């Protein structure tokens, strides 16, 4: 048994326990060293991910390939950036405890397991590990009612989604006789199509997974959780779990259920359409920046799902590129939101940003870059993300998706650019506090990535291509 195949996850889990032990035994405030140790563990895990050879292990429960490697690196990057943003915020809010990075780390272990899942059981356990960690960090500001309320909503709806997923898995197991992806693929390849029970099972599995990526019609929790959770947790929920959930959808639908694509493609198309339209329309009336970002996330997940609905290699490649671009844009915008602090107090209303260009031009510029990128203005990164998925949809002949996608992008551009207008044209509000160095660093790094994506996109596109080939090969 080649157990080394899961070495990154094992090392990460063991270092999580070591950090936990260190935090408990350390006499003084352990949050700073634990944060640093967790970042170090992420770095080590990233090296191990890159050096682990392809293959499958643990009796076909776990698989490592170019796809899992690509997504894992993205998850680790998103989690590390979110953790970096949490340092100063948590200290300001009085929730800087050493358990925070440990929980983030275990959530990452869960996500990495999900991405490498080659069996529905691995998938479910990884998902639960991730979700339970997320519920806890959502409630981390336990004295704030909003935080507890968000966590409770997330928990109840998440438990419901897990139930749906499990029910679907049990139906699939009952009808196909296995939970292993490879065995499912061969069992479902039989002529004569799938039995209706199997299709019902797959629909339930899709429902459970769509909840993960907060796409319509399982998006209800997103705005409340985004608004109520401590902002670094919102950053985290908005990046790594979305990537992991989307990767799970891509792998599950194209590997074991690939032969039934006729049955699920329409479903994914509808989910994608609904997400894009709701993301565009519901965001218009929002005044709270975090809520707005929640609807924006729903929309972005809709665009990503276009790639899956296209059902081609180019579509999967487009979806992966979109995820990369989305993670960096999202972290960048939230770095700006975390910097929104006046006299030590957090504020989240868009109107509070009025005239930011005059009081803090650098931050306003960074905001503008990310917002324009989210709106899909060339030559920023967001444009290329959209370009690749729309291109794939057109090549696959899915004109409806492509046209609706372009139209909703135009609507989305309205509310993104309205924020830019508030920052650059309106009469200035009082100046905001000095930004913490770490926040500036994250904003600058993601900003540079977004602006210069066009220059170094070739290796990322190549890696996404290789990853998509695995699922189609």
């Amino acid at each position: 048994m080649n157990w080394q195949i899961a070495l990154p996850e094992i090392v990460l889990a063991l270092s999580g326990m070591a950090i936990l032990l260190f935090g408990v035994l350390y006499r003084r405030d352990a949050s700073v060293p634990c944060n640093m140790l967790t970042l170090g563990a992420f770095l080590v895990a990233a090296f191990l991910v890159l050096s682990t050879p392809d293959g499958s292990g643990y009796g076909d429960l776990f698989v490592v390939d170019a796809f899992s490697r690509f997504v894992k690196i993205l998850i680790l990057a998103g989690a590390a950036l979110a953790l970096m943003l949490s340092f100063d915020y948590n200290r300001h809010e009085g929730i800087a405890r050493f358990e925070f990075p440990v929980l983030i780390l275990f959530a990452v272990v869960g996500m990495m397991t999900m991405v490498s899942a080659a069996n529905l059981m691995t998938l479910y356990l990884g998902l639960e590990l991730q979700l339970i960690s997320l519920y806890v960090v959502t409630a981390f500001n336990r004295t704030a009612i909003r935080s507890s309320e968000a966590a409770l909503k997330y928990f109840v709806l998440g438990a419901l989604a897990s139930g749906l997923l499990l029910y679907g898995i049990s139906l699939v197991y009952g009808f196909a006789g296995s939970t292993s992806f490879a065995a499912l693929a061969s069992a479902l390849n039989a002529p004569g199509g799938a039995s209706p029970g199997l299709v019902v099972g797959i629909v339930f599995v899709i429902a459970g997974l769509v909840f993960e990526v907060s796409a319509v019609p399982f998006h209800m929790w997103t705005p409340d959780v985004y608004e109520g959770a401590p902002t670094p947790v919102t950053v985290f929920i908005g990046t790594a779990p979305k990537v992991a959930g989307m990767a799970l959808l891509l792998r599950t639908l194209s590997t074991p259920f690939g032969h039934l694509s006729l049955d699920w493609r329409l479903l994914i198309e509808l989910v994608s359409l609904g997400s894009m339209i709701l993301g565009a329309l519901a965001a218009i009336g929002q005044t709270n920046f975090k809520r707005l970002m929640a609807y924006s996330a729903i929309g972005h997940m809709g665009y990503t799902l276009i790639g899956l609905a296209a059902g081609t290699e180019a579509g999967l490649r487009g979806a992966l590129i979109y995820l990369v671009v989305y993670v960096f844009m999202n972290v960048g915008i939230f770095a700006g939101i975390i910097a929104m602090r006046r006299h030590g107090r957090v504020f989240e209303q868009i109107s509070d940003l009025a005239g930011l260009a005059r009081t803090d031009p650098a931050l306003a510029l960074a905001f503008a870059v990310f917002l324009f990128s989210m709106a899909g203005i060339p030559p920023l990164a967001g444009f290329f993300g959209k370009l690749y998925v729309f291109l794939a949809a057109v090549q696959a002949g899915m004109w409806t998706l492509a046209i609706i996608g372009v139209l909703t992008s135009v609507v989305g551009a309205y509310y993104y650019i309205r924020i830019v207008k508030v920052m650059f044209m309106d009469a200035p509000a009082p100046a905001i506090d000095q930004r913490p160095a770490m926040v500036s660093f994250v904003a600058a790094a993601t900003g540079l990535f977004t602006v210069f994506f066009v220059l170094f996109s070739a290796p990322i596109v190549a890696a996404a291509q290789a990853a998509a080939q695995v699922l189609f090969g």
Partner: protein
Amino acid sequence: MIATIGFYVFAVILLASATMVVTARNPVHSVLFLILAFFNAAALFLIAGAEFLAMILIIVYVGAVAVLFLFVVMMLDVNFAELREGVQRYAPVGLVVGLILLFELGLVLTGWHFAPSAAEIRMSPTPTALSNTAALGNVLYTRYIFLFQLAGLILLVAMIGAIVLTHRERGTARRQRIGRQNARQPEETLAMLNVALGAGIDEIGILRPLPDPAPVGAESHALPHAAEPH
């Protein structure tokens, strides 16, 4: 023959006690019937030849879960009559939804047919040369060791979460201070007295005086050092 009779006896008792669990008015009775149901289910497992599952069912469910239920029922002031009020109000709607779901599931299940290759790829064939316990151990700790460890991680995270979200440092907590305990001298705590025959403890004043009323929590602790604020 005996096994068949046994099966029906245990099955009938199981069903009856399960019905009593949900219909009994007194929650303590419910829990007791639950325990009875567990025992009968264990007997059914025994008849089916799954001795390990039977024992595990009794140890885990009766030993731990049912006792926990009893604790909850007896210690917490839950008004079960109030909880039940909603049931009658929502029963008609729930029944309609349930019937529709049942009908739909029936439609699904009538289309039940196994995938042609399902039989060959079935993952858990009945073990022949192994005892039940060894076979379960193989499945749990060898075949699915990865999932087993993952489940352990989930429990660890749940534990961390419970502690993080509920534990708070209390200023009034009394901690053991070993250095102080070791430094205690007999003279501080012991007094040798000559007691007259037949005299009660009240008369000779053998009870040590209570320490001076300290601000917090002094009255319950007669030992001098315990009354100091920490």
